[in-house]
């Protein structure tokens, strides 16, 4: 059994982190684009009503307003569901926020297919790709509630645009207050030299669970949590490639141009080894219960185990 500290949705890490940050830093302001209760931004709104700016259902304006606030010394946190946060206003993020290197923090909720019954329109599966491709943007995909809280607080320390992805459904808490969280530095959660399983977001729990199944089969997997997808920790990836000779990446996101691709970019340029990807393969999601969807789209620990078995056959 993977050691966990209960279940809690990562989105609460964002809302609670924002309140904690707001207590410390008076320049932090939050922009609401409606849906503030489901993104948990309402926690900030209730605590600091004067520093909460409601913009309504107008994402493009919200992003521009955030840029403007940052240019007069505020640290704006603008948040909505990832499909809208990263999609509806991509041009605003690219040209106004990132090209000007504005100190804007973007919270992207409802990341992944586990959003469930709302279906494909609300299941963000592309934001890692569309955000990491923009110069100056930093991308963080925390693995659990605790890490999301740390990431939200820490984002204020990094100058420039930061995108933080979080999910809707409760997921296992696998880190605690003492787990290191250093921007840009991956965490090796488990040692092993047969294969490296590299994950981001709540899928890291599935990776840990897969490693336990593999252990029973005599395969020792190294499990790596890459919370900072950009800038990515090349050193830890290269070491994993060298030590293990095979890599499986795990993400609740499109594999194409996504997290696995980001890892592959490092691997092929530095230490090419066979890789397999666990993620969404060029498909939209659909309605269903979160667990049903994770199974249907092959995002569970057993699917990671299968990917490990495939990659091991290709190992030289």
């Amino acid at each position, binding site marked *: 059994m993977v050691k966990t500290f209960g279940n809690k949705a990562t989105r609460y890490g964002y809302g609670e982190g924002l309140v904690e940050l707001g207590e410390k830093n008076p320049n932090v302001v939050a922009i609401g684009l409606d849906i503030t209760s489901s993104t948990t931004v309402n926690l900030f709104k209730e605590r600091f009503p004067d520093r909460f700016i409601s913009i309504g259902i107008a994402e493009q304006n919200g992003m*521009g*307003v955030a840029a403007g*606030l940052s240019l*007069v010394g505020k640290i704006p946190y603008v948040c909505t569901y990832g499909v809208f946060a990263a999609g509806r206003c991509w041009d*605003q993020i690219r040209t106004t926020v990132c090209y000007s290197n504005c100190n804007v923090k973007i919270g992207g909720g409802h990341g992944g297919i586990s959003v469930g019954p709302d279906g494909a329109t609300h299941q963000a599966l592309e934001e890692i790709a569309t955000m990491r491709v923009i110069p100056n943007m930093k991308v963080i995909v925390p693995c659990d509630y605790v890490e999301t809280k740390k990431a939200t607080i820490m984002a204020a320390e990094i100058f420039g645009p930061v995108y933080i992805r979080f999910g809707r459904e409760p997921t296992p808490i696998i880190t605690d207050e003492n787990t290191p969280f250093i921007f840009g530095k991956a965490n090796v959660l488990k040692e092993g030299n047969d294969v490296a399983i590299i994950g981001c977001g709540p899928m890291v729990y599935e990776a840990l669970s897969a490693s336990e199944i593999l252990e029973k089969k005599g395969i020792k997997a190294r499990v790596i949590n890459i919370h900072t997808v950009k800038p990515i920790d090349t050193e830890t990836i290269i070491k994993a490639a060298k030590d293990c000779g095979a890599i499986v990446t795990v993400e609740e996101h499109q594999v194409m141009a996504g997290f696995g691709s980001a890892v592959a970019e490092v691997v092929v340029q530095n230490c090419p080894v066979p890789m397999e990807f666990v993620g969404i393969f060029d498909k939209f999601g659909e309605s269903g219960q979160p667990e049903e969807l994770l199974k249907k789209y092959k995002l569970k620990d057993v699917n990671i185990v299968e990917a490990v078995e495939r990659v091991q056959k290709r190992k030289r």
Partner: protein
Amino acid sequence: MEREKKSAKELEKISNELRIDIIKMLCEAGSGHPGGSLSIIDILTVLYFNHIIHDPKNPDWDGRDRVVLSKGHVCPALYAVLSKCGYFPHEELFTLRKLGSRLQGHPAKDKGLPGIEVSTGSLGQGLSVGVGMAIGFKLDKKPNRVYVVMGDGEQQEGSIWEAVMSAGHYKLDNLIGIVDHNNLQIDGEVEKVMGVENLEEKYRAFRWETIRINGHNISEIDSAFEKAKKIKGKPVAIIADTIKGKGVSFMENVAEWHGKAPNKDQAEKCISELCNLIK
């Protein structure tokens, strides 16, 4: 802070001198946007010399007003006026659009040109930035004002109206929007490509005050800004009727000159016409 205001006559002279700079810059660059640069220059001249509070020698000074050029493609006009104010040396103007220049084809904050507040060029985004700045100043109870310069074709962007709505909602009387209403966009007449009128009624419907002026009459521009600064409880839109290519006979009201630089011969003709205006 009271400043000594320049007379309409002085401003007109400066503006026409800046027109010559614009033509020279564009000719030297071999590309760029003369039409809109010439239609907005009178407004920018009046704004920078008589209205905004700023310190060109200290471009990052907190107390400055902010100017956002949402219609970023007319940056030759902005660069010319910034240089005239003393933000950077005059000779740098002629590096426009060249490799390594701080004067990018559209304003680029990351190139470090003093006076550029934000990167613009993708239309429809600047007013939102201005709204954010104005809200920020209100939060801190600061007196700074924000001026956002937009095009009339740009009013076709939906995001403009999101921003207009939010400025009205927050009663941003520290925000002044200027629409350079020259009636032309790349594809032709604005009203034929996609009609935007009646702009005054539209802005008023979104809880703005509006002032309509002749955007080439220096005194009218000057009093519009004076009036706009006094209005309380509402943002103000100055709808300025202008002429694309203003000041050069063969460029006036010709859509083709939206995004085409004059060659050497054409530039000489422009300059000789403009010199006659200055006499």
